[in-house]
């Protein structure tokens, strides 16, 4: 979870090896993925074998993430054929129709032959989910999967994702700026700010007792549907310039609890309570 520019999407793209190089460059760190080890050490061909098969991705805007000149069915078939070259034509089609049924696409036999522009936004996102599920991945990265959708369609897609996760046993890395979506979907939450994780906690802990001043500010800033709030809390100031980050804590200039040390030493994530990690000098001191 995080706001624009916090680096949540870039993190996800890096895991999938989808950062275009150049201009992008991964300068350090590791991405450990099960038995495959550090993904950053893999060759492009090896990554290709993982993408779509072991890990797949669902993007924010279903309108633009499907290729307009190919049918929905073909684009899902492609994901299967890429990782299973020997599948027969008939099996392929029935598998795609099966997937379409699984993600509740209306009239799946017909829909496989539809071009993306003939489908609604919600249906397109279902096609993307079908594509993501096609090879039974261990990890599904969902990058703001419902941000471009209407409220009622969002609820459908979230429900679907939850149900499929239960059935398939995949892990889901859900990226969102919407605290409601996070609350409904997540088990554990990492809050990001200006390129780093500032807090990591089980979802109920995060909402019941947020620790990082940024998280607290964010929770106070959202209008509530379940009750009236007189005045919204405001985080003063703006995001620091990512080209010229300050020394010490990146949130210091907007923080009401800042200490002297915050100006010079960048805080690291520390487990303050079981399973609840925070990167904040003030929180660490108070405990």
């Amino acid at each position, binding site marked *: 979870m995080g706001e624009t520019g916090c680096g949540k999407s870039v993190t996800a793209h890096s895991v*999938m090896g*989808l950062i275009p190089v150049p201009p992008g460059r991964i300068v350090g760190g590791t991405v450990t993925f099960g038995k495959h080890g550090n993904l950053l050490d893999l060759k*492009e*061909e090896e990554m*290709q*074998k*993982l*993408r*779509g*098969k072991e890990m*797949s*991705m669902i*993007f924010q*805007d279903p309108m*633009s*993430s*499907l*290729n*307009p*000149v*190919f049918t929905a069915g073909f*684009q899902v078939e*492609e*994901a299967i054929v*890429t*990782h299973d070259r020997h599948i027969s034509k008939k099996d392929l089609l029935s598998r795609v129709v099966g997937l379409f049924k699984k993600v509740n696409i209306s009239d799946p036999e017909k829909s496989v032959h539809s*071009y993306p*522009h*003939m489908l609604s936004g919600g249906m397109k996102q279902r096609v*993307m989910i079908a*594509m993501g599920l096609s090879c039974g991945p261990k990890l599904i990265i969902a990058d703001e999967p419902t941000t471009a959708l209407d409220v009622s369609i969002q609820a459908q897609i979230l429900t679907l994702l939850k149900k499929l996760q239960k059935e398939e046993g995949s892990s889901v890395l859900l990226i969102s700026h919407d605290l409601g979506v996070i609350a409904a979907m997540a088990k554990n939450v990492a809050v990001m700010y200006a390129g780093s994780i500032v807090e990591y906690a089980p979802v109920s802990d995060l909402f019941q007792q947020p620790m990082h001043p940024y998280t607290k500010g964010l929770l106070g800033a959202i209008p509530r549907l379940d009750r009236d709030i007189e005045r919204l809390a405001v985080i003063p100031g703006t995001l620091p310039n990512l080209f010229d980050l300050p020394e010490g804590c990146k949130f210091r200039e907007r923080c009401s609890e800042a200490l002297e040390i915050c100006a010079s030493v960048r805080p690291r994530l520390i487990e303050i309570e079981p399973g609840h990690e925070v990167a904040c000098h003030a929180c660490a001191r108070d405990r």
Partner: protein
Amino acid sequence: MLRFIFRRLLLLIPVLIGVSIVAFLILHLAPGDPAQMMGGIEASEADLIMLRQKFGLDRPLPVQYFMFLKGMFTGELLSLRYESPVMEVIWPRLKNTLALASVSIVIAVLIGVTAGVLSAVKRKTWMDYTATVFALLGISMPVFWWGLLLMLLFSVKLMWLPSGGMGTPLHYILPSIVLGTASAGIIARMTRSSMLDVLRQDYITTATAKGLSRRLVVGRHALRNAMIPTVTVVGLQFGQLLAGAVLTETVFSWPGVGRLLVTSILARDYPVVQTSLVLIAAFFVLVNLAVDVLYAVLDPRVRYHG
């Protein structure tokens, strides 16, 4: 799909009528007596009277226009120079021009699309820069001069290729290269920019994310979309080739409609000039119709909504 084509055909009619009116009016918009323009300064009074009668120049303009239209198709409209129906004069030459332009466009598309795709995929490498410079050179080369240079080298100095006329396939080589050069450059630039555009799209990331190789991502997902705007440019370029033929044919003495047009202008054979203009424009418009259809084949969004 048929309805789509039919609708486009209907839309052509006003354009074609407009084209014929413009071609017809050109002679009348110029200051001075049209008969004098046809006859030239050396024409006698008797000649002028004869010309006025033959083309109905003393009758109201709308009447003249319909005489012109009718004469074009019935063969009543005669070339002043050849004294035979204009269509009979133009048609065989138009066929020669179309043959030349077709060979040229094939060359231009092959070179242009390949260069454009390579330069987009290898953006900011020496390959991209070389392709860019050559494309811009091609666009900037005066056709007639480029023709003269090639002729000088391959016909005059090396004597490998004929310097003019038509007949054997060898005769096609120089004129079609010369004619297609600029188009190849323009197609290359267009393909490059539309390819770069497409490569930025989200569905390209999707294709990569499902595990496709770079080759399939570019060759299947990107190329198909990038060709959509390129096809339009190819259609427009075909028109440029028909027009460019005026110069190329003059350089290589190609017996086509372009050369006919120039010699007819110099000989003040206006019926031939006007009819040639109408026919070339009509062909151009038809090619663009074909492009629209191809466009719809490539782009399902057009197919269902167009």
